[in-house]
């Protein structure tokens, strides 16, 4: 083989290898990003489930603890706000407020033994606990996928092409400050 042919063959081989790598890296990043989108949507599903549960809970508690108007209204208002705002930052804040309001309501319910013995209320309480867990796990799953994706676009050599194809870092879900404090009960 003449030197020209060898060089040509080497060039073609090199371009092929780079092309294959490019394809693999790009597809990998797309897959990771889609997983993040899917996980984000899943959080929405669980938050909506929580919204749907609240009217039932409010009505059940109202039957036994009508005095707690303030706490009940806080929940109703927080739910209305959470279902109406649209900007992601606002939604996160609103959902956090709803979590706090619900926490206060459940804490208050502890002082009503008749309410605590009510089967309906207990079932609803379990559903609420489950829903809070689902929201938390959905956020955890989102964080896990977002971390994988963020890592995937920052490692070498993917980092070289990530920017030019529009792969940007996704934010992680942080606990809003209010959710970290235990709910205070006001009598």
């Amino acid at each position: 083989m003449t030197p020209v042919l060898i060089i040509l063959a080497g060039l073609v081989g090199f371009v092929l290898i780079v092309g294959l790598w490019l394809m693999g890296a790009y597809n990998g990043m797309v897959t990771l990003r889609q997983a993040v989108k899917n996980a984000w949507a899943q959080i929405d599903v669980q938050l909506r489930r929580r919204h749907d549960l609240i009217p039932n809970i409010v009505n059940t508690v109202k039957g036994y603890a009508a005095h707690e108007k303030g706490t009940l209204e806080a929940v109703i208002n927080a739910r209305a706000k959470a279902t109406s705002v649209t900007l992601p930052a606002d939604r996160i804040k609103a959902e956090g407020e709803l979590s706090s309001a619900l926490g206060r309501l459940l804490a208050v319910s502890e002082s009503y033994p008749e309410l605590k013995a009510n089967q309906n209320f207990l079932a609803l309480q379990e559903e609420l606990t489950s829903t809070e867990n689902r929201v938390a796990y959905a956020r955890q799953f989102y964080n896990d996928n977002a971390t994988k994706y963020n890592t995937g676009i920052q490692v070498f050599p993917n980092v070289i092409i990530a920017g030019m194809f529009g792969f940007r870092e996704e934010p992680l879900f942080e606990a809003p400050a209010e959710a970290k404090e235990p709910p205070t009960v006001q009598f």
Partner: protein
Amino acid sequence: MNFRDEQKRNVRTTWLLSGAFFLLLTVTGVLLDFFIFKGQMFLITPAVVIFAAGQGLYAYYSGTAMLLRSVEAVPLDSSASPKHRQVQNILEELCLAAGLPQPPLYVEPDAAINAFAAGRDPEHSVVCVTTGLIDRLERNEIAGVLAHELAHIRNRDVLLFTIMAAFVGAVGLLAALAFRSIRGTRVSRRSKNSGQLVLALILIAVVLWLASWLGKLLRLAVSRTREFLADATAVEFTREPDGLVSALEKIRQEAIETEYGEADMAHAYFAQPHFRASSFFASHPPLDERIARLRVWQPEPPTPAAR
């Protein structure tokens, strides 16, 4: 995030043990090909491997219905009691954490606290719990156990165990064929070589016996490693080990014999309630060691939720 290091360690061990398995099969096959199957060299071992692989594939694809029937499991009815509803909820929550499709839940009538998962891949899996588990465990303990079972599903342990069984079957089949071949050899020749021949045959018989024992031990070692891995993966899902630790401690305290303790099923259960002196022969690691490994990890700061 120390549970991730534990996961890496157990995956490494799995690879090492699988390599040892493969080596065992290869060495046994080659030795036998040279010394016993002289006329059919390099033909018998591949044929045996293919046959064992076929058996494995059949077992792998045969589904879970027969298995569930054999333990008299029925689908879980979430309206049967608040506790049943709770178990169903917990499984749904954990599937969100794991990103797995939700497997159908079954209940097995048994007073002991136990559970198992079965199925060839996440889309075709089932999870079964005992009535004892539903009655006696708290919410976070049930979460620990179910997370452990989902971990088995995600880690494809059923696939791995099927491959292991196929390997062990292949070694066993080779041994059986070799023994038949040995018996067929005429030793009654009155030549000075007959003594050596008998010795060689005895030696080979010993080697075969060792090989099949090694295969069984390796299989049990792999099973134990995957149990540790499932514990670590369960913590990855729940982000706190306390529920699982608490469930294991309850099981340790009570140690009621499981009704269905067939050796085949033993490895698939959550815990092995029979206490054995030597851990080599157990398909599950001792409960003490599982608890000790779990206790090392502190719960992470919680993602916002009520538990």
